[in-house]
């Protein structure tokens, strides 16, 4: 710590250059934060072992629908407390840009499995009493200015009505919010019975099943039991966590995790060049000063450590600022992101630890060659040059 003052003053020797370098580090870590959060959201981080809710999909593709008859068979499997179903509606409001998730559900079953979705009793009752009723999350209601009693037209992209129309009108009967701090409520729920009766095709089919496990039930065993139940049937199933389910949606866009890693790899490689160049210039400019340090008794290793510490400090300042800014932006973008893929942005503990490691490793990597150069300086030659 006694060298901190020296190190601190050294890095601010060229304020503009150091500020720009820190800015480049900041941008790199900002991208790290956001891309990691997006990658995490899209790749599904939850393990099956820790899951309390499972999702049962068609084994071949989530585009394929499952028979409604599966519900009672799943409900009979030991460890299953509740089961319900949902289906991707894929509509938009007024403009194709206004896309968000809409699901036809059985209200009582669905809200029993998702107790974090909360709405007043009278609104729930209204939903149950109105076949064309719908409830929407507070995020959506705020975004589009909807209130209870509004009639909202949703343009379908998949599900044509029996009358050939693609416009489905719903009465907003309630506005719910989620009590899960990591959850999102930018969705619309409407009644499956109305949907099933009014749609032109696909009667008796659902998109996927959601399974609520008994306390103490082994998720892996239940998952296997469900898939075994439908093995060798025309519609085999694959049971996974909710996060893996979200990931399967995202994977339709491509291998998100690989794309994220490639972008971050390029960003950090560039960062190493920028910071390494800053450190190399900094050492070249003060050959004489480094020689003075050695002259008054600083050991070669101490000089090496000081230059390395400067590099790590620059990386730490930029990294910390980038992470903080990234976290702030992440909070702002989380709800908007959730409205698109159904899950919010979240940076895992591993990603934070990873960021700390990158700061240290990148700082060392950027500083090592200039530091070695400083360490190996001949005092006599350096004094003559400096």
């Amino acid at each position, binding site marked *: 710590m*006694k*060298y901190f*003052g*020296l190190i601190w*003053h*050294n890095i*601010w*020797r060229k304020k503009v250059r150091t500020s720009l370098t820190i800015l480049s580090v900041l941008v790199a870590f900002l991208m790290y934060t956001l891309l990691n959060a997006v990658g995490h959201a899209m790749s599904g981080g939850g393990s099956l072992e820790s899951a309390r809710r499972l999702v049962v999909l068609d084994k071949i593709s989530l585009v394929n629908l499952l028979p409604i008859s599966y519900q009672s068979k799943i409900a009979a499997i030991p460890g299953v407390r509740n089961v319900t179903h949902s289906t991707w509606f894929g509509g938009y409001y007024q403009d194709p840009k206004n896309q968000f998730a809409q699901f036809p559900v059985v209200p009582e079953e669905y809200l029993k499995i998702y107790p974090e979705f909360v709405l007043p009793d009278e609104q729930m009752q209204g939903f149950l009493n109105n076949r064309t009723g719908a409830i929407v999350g507070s995020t959506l209601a705020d975004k589009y200015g909807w209130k209870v009693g509004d009639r909202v037209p949703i343009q379908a992209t998949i599900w044509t009505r029996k009358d050939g129309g693609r416009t489905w009108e719903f009465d907003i009967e309630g506005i719910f919010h989620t009590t899960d701090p990591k959850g999102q409520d930018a969705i619309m729920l409407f009644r499956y019975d109305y949907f099933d009766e009014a749609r032109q095709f696909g009667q008796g089919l659902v998109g996927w099943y959601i399974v609520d496990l008994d306390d103490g039930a082994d998720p892996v065993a239940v998952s296997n039991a469900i898939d075994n139940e439908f093995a060798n049937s025309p519609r085999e199933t694959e049971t996974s966590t909710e996060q893996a389910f979200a990931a399967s949606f995202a994977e339709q866009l491509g291998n998100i995790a690989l794309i994220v890693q490639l972008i971050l790899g390029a960003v950090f490689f560039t960062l190493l060049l920028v910071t390494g160049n800053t450190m190399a210039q900094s050492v070249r400019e003060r050959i*004489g*000063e480094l*020689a*003075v*340090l*050695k*002259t*008054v*008794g*600083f*050991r*070669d*290793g*101490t000089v090496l450590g000081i230059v390395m510490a400067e590099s790590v400090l620059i990386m730490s300042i930029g990294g910390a600022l980038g992470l903080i800014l990234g976290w702030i932006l992440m909070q702002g973008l989380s709800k908007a992101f959730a409205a698109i893929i159904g899950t919010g942005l979240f940076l895992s503990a591993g990603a934070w630890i990873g960021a700390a490691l990158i700061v240290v490793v990148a700082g060392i990597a950027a500083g090592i060659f200039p530091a070695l150069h400083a360490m190996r300086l001949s*005092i*006599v030659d350096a*004094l003559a040059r*400096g």
Partner: protein
Amino acid sequence: MSDVLAELRGVSRVYQKGKERVEVLHELDLEIPAGDFLAIMGPSGSGKTTLLNLLGGLDRPSAGTVTVGGATLPSMSNNQLSNWRSTHIGFVFQFYNLLPVLTAQKNVELPLLLTSFDSKERASRAAIALDIVGLSDRAKHTPRELSGGEEQRVAIARAIVSDPTLLLCDEPTGDLDRETADEIMKLLQILNSEHGKTIVMVTHDAQAADYANRTLHVDKGKLESRAAA
């Protein structure tokens, strides 16, 4: 004069410049008693600075032995030499060589970072050193806010803050006007006479050399003559 503080015996220093072999010092013998104030003069390239570097453990002889305060320098490792310099030697350079990013106070504290003193103790000792050179009121100024003479005073304060036995000064007045040069030389004289520092000073300046107790002339790597001041 009392015991011998530094001794060079048969010291040669040869540099290889490409295919050319350049002998800067040739079988040089020299004794420097403790408490001496020695000026070394000579033309450029005569080996004055090389001699100073050898005394300070910044360079190693090609042949011969350098002993300072009982320590045989050529046999010491680089780290041992670093430790030894930090406690036994103070350096003063022609162009001051202060760190421009640090205040005068922090520049003077630099050698003390290598000690076990806490920040308070370091600050206290640096303040005393600055007081000795008459710059207490400039402690918070950076080198660019100081005149050349003031910078050299700060450099001298940095050289004495660790209370070394030997001060090595390489052209300490070479970048200063006459009046300021005389002030610096008087300061060095006080450090020698009142604070007991042994001083070896390389200079081109005969008037500066007059402040020393004695002057040696080096030419073509050999000590040419001795003259009492």
